[in-house]
């Protein structure tokens, strides 16, 4: 399995190649090289997955962790060292498949979507860099390697969101994304430091081994502000995950990040980067479960609230990409909830499996939704719903694939989203009824706003487009990925996921919980039906309802003023009371001491220049005198 390292290295080489000489290539050639390279990665990832799941992965009854490649990079002690390696276990192999598939689709799609853009080569170089970072993150053998790639993901997504760097809004969005996630990563880093300080290791394998024995024993009852240190460390680590996965209140960067090219949104903000936080918690799941169950409960509540919150906002947004962005936040929150309510081992670990399952299916249908939205935007040159409508007549492929994705995300049987969402709801149902009913309600909202989106784009009256801007179906480079992802969105739910992924790596069997499934089907169908009533034909009903809702509608449209709250916190509190004093200190004390040092240096340099006279007599005199002075000083002082 040594070749699995190639999956990570290939995108990096592509990045170097495209970044250094891409500018000299023709755009199409650069794009094709990038796409072929990603294709190679995908083939390798599928081979690894096949070999792992059907040949070497299963030892006895359980899935093993394989480390086919490891390089000790920095060694502090025998236990504490930073490695760069590849760790293959069910979730990392699954992620390899997801990332390479979606990334390949986005690579192909971008050949059409980005055609003629300036910086086409740079775009492909950055896509490769992002894929490299994300792949390195999921195969990390230790938490520090994960952190390194975590930051790389942040940097590459920053440059992709800010791809249209001449657009001020894109620049602002990229800065916002970087600063918010970076702020969360500060917590992640502190968490890592606390954790490794007590456990003396970074290794996932050692941390999670034997029911996370190392973590539970090594913290030995240390507390801080009434919470145990283990809780602090893991809560801080979760903060990093919450930042990347856009959990409330750190979600504010994700909607703005839609300023990036749409395929980038499909790759980063739907399928890969934003699930990094979920992956992190899943990777550390035994540690969370045994060492800090309170944090898991917190994750469940944060997730449930975020799911509801984002779904409510999604209902009122008019920019189709923003609807998808909030829907992403909501769906990722689903995965977080599933981890939060999960227990460990066997069928009790249903939530863990459900979370990974939903991550898997969501990656495909959400990427499909984004790419479909991109196709629509490509056709009508606008993000706003009011500029769309009746597009089913112009864009048949986009229409059908988009509908499939909407069915999947709404959780209609037998599309993939139904199965994974059912498992999450079942897990919540048995452990936290309150959370279950919240999620159930959110499922209804999801169905409603997705179908509102669908009907507004593809139906909603007989909107006519004047000849000049007549929408047309996208070229085959864009249509093919849509069709492939649609196939995935339909069938990926049929995989018996519990056979492959479980909290304790022991396969178990699940069945569809029909009571939960029928409840969720009822609410989903209701949601779709309401959307159909309101939006299938152009009408004034939605506006009237919005009128009646009054304040609630406005609050939702304004995203519950979270941006304003953060703006107030940073501008009035942080800037005035923290940054200003620091700035003063920097200007006067730090700069002052440096200027003083420079002044002293210049003066003394002038003062002693006579020493270098060029005369050998003086040199010898100085030599001997110096030696004698040193000797005498040592003797008599």
């Amino acid at each position, binding site marked *: 399995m040594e070749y699995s390292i190639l999956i990570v290295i290939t995108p990096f080489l592509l990045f170097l190649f495209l970044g250094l000489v891409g500018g000299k290539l023709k755009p199409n050639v650069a794009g094709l090289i990038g796409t072929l390279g990603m294709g190679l990665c995908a083939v390798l990832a599928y081979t690894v997955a096949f070999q792992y799941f059907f040949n070497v992965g299963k030892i006895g009854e359980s899935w093993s962790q394989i480390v086919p490649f490891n390089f000790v990079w920095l060694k502090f002690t025998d236990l504490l060292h930073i490695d760069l390696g590849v760790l293959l276990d069910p979730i990392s192999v699954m992620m390899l498949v997801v990332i390479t598939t979606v990334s390949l689709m986005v690579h192909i799609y971008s050949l059409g979507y980005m055609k003629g853009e300036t910086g086409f080569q740079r775009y492909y170089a950055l896509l490769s860099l992002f894929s490299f970072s994300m792949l390195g993150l999921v195969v990390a053998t230790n938490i520090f390697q994960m952190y390194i790639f975590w930051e790389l993901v942040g940097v590459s997504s920053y440059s992709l969101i800010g791809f249209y760097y001449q657009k001020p809004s894109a620049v602002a969005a990229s800065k916002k994304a970087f600063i918010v996630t970076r702020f969360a990563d500060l917590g992640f880093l502190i968490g890592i430091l606390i954790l490794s300080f007590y456990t003396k290791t970074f290794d996932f394998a050692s941390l999670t081994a034997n029911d996370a024995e190392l973590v539970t024993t090594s913290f030995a009852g240390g507390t801080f502000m009434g919470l145990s240190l283990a809780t602090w460390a893991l809560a801080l680590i979760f903060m990093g995950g919450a930042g990347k996965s856009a959990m409330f209140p750190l979600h504010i960067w994700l909607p703005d990040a839609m300023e990036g090219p749409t395929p980038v949104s499909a790759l980063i903000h739907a399928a890969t980067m934003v699930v990094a936080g979920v992956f992190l918690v899943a990777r550390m799941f035994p540690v969370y479960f045994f060492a800090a169950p309170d944090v898991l409960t917190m994750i469940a509540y944060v997730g449930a609230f975020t799911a509801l919150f984002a779904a409510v906002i999604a209902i009122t947004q008019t920019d189709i990409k923003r609807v998808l962005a909030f829907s992403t936040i909501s769906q990722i929150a689903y995965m977080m909830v599933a981890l939060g309510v999960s227990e460990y081992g066997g069928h009790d670990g249903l939530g863990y499996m459900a979370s990974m399952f939903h991550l898997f299916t969501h990656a495909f249908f959400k990427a499909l939704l984004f790419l479909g939205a991109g196709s629509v935007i490509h056709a009508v040159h606008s993000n706003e719903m009011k500029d769309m409508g009746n597009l089913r007549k112009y864009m048949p492929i986009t229409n059908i694939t988009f509908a499939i994705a909407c069915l999947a995300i709404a959780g209609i049987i037998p599309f993939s989203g139904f199965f994974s969402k059912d498992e999450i709801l079942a897990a919540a149902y048995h452990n936290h009824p309150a959370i279950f009913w919240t999620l159930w309600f959110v499922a209804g909202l999801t169905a409603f706003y997705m179908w509102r989106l669908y009907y507004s784009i593809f139906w909603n009256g007989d909107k006519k487009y004047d000849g000049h801007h007549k929408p047309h179906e996208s070229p085959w480079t864009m249509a093919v990925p849509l069709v492939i992802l649609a196939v995935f969105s339909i069938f990926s739910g049929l995989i018996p996921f519990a056979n492959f992924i479980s909290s304790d790596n022991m396969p178990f069997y699940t069945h569809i919980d029909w009571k939960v499934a029928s409840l969720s089907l009822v609410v989903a169908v209701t949601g779709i039906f309401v959307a159909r009533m309101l939006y299938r034909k152009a009408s004034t009903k939605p506006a009237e309802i919005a009128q009646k809702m009054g304040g609630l509608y406005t609050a939702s449209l304004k995203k519950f003023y979270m941006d304003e709250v953060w703006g107030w916190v940073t501008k009035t509190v942080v800037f005035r009371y923290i940054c200003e004093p620091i700035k003063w200190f920097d200007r006067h004390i730090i700069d002052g001491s440096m200027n003083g040092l420079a002044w002293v240096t210049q003066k003394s340099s002038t003062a*002693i220049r006579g020493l270098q006279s060029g005369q050998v007599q003086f040199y010898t005199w100085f030599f001997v005198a110096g030696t004698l002075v040193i000797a005498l000083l040592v003797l008599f002082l």
Partner: protein
Amino acid sequence: MNFSNFLLMGQETGLIVVVIILFFCDIFSTGKTAKWFYPLSIILFSILTLWGFCPKPEGEAFGGIFVTSDMTVLMKNILNIATLLVFLQSYRWLNSKEQSEEKGEFFIITLITLLGMYLMVSANNFMMLYIGMETASLPLACLAAFNKHQEKSAEAGVKFILISALASAVMLFGLSFLYGAMGTLYFNDMSLTVLNNPVTIFGLVFFLGGLGFKLSLVPFHLWTADVYEGAPTSVTAYLSVVSKGAATFALIFALFKVFGSMDIVWQNIIWWLSVITITLGNLFAIRQKDIKRFFAFSSISQAGYILVGIIAYNAQGMTATVYYILAYVFSNLAAFAVISAVENQSGKTSIAAFNGLYKSNPKLTLVMMLSVFSLGGIPVCVGFFSKLFIFLAAASAGQYVLIFIVVLNTVISLYYYLLIILAMFIKEPEESAVATFKSDIYNRIGMLICVVGILAVGLVSGIYSYINSLNWVI
């Protein structure tokens, strides 16, 4: 006579064989074959360098005056790499009209000084150390005066030989004190009988004076700038890196092996020497207009940094110091590769000649940039890691005040290193600026090695661990 002793002297013997081969080749190569002399020398010496990395036996020879261990082998390998890099830089200079007759001499004399440095590193007896040092010093005076038609070069040679003679007298004087106090010059025996009394201290200080000349520590440094400026650039590079490296290795062995029990005394001396050396080196470096003089003072202050590593009398200090030399080899020789390229092209060695170099020769400029970044200790470059390790070593010995002073000095050194960057990237070129040119293939290979060294050595953590794993006492 026990010939097995010679087996332990593998590298020395190999070097002598290379010298003899080159000697005969030089005599018998005339006319057409002469142009093959340079590549032959490079190939032979590269083979010797590579062979140095093969495993070697450890042990003492000749009744214990000569000692070899994996650590000394590593040190000699570092010196070999540095010498090879210097040779690679010297191609154009040696093939210029004035020098083309004397190629052979340059190689042979340089390699003989290298032999002396091998002996310094492997010495386990002060007499051996002294002989090694003399072998390494006297021929260097010839090299300094190698451009014999140039007044400055002759001046450099004279100054070097005078101060060198003085230094060796001072050192011998010190050794006689030590012999008087202990009755032996063998490191192993001395370490058993060394006592903290005035005679020994006098001996130690004078010995340090002798080696301080080679390391160009303040106050034994005044020759440095004049000699570095006057000597041919390749010789300056050799003096500033190889000669210094060998002196460092000899010093650290002598201090650690012999004077271990009086570490408080020499740590005090080293403390002051290092502070004065770094500070004075920095203060002078700021004012320089000539790039070779500039690097003379930069190398003085670098010698001070080396002492910071030595002050930690433990394995970590040893590792950090050796690592520092390795880093210094790549960083400093990269700069000299650029200097000699520019000098051979334009005949100029002023810093002003580098103004606007980025526009005409971007690649050379990047090499120079990496070099000064590494010397200044900017992260990713190996110089950052080497500085970090000597600071860590000093911290392990509790020398926090020293670290503070040295870090302040690092800020100053960044200032003058950035002056070079400023000249190359921002200043407008002079009227008679250096035009775009292509360096010879040898120099380019040398620069490539340096760049790879600067960028890779720090990140390949195995190198530090390897040095750390070597046992420095037999």
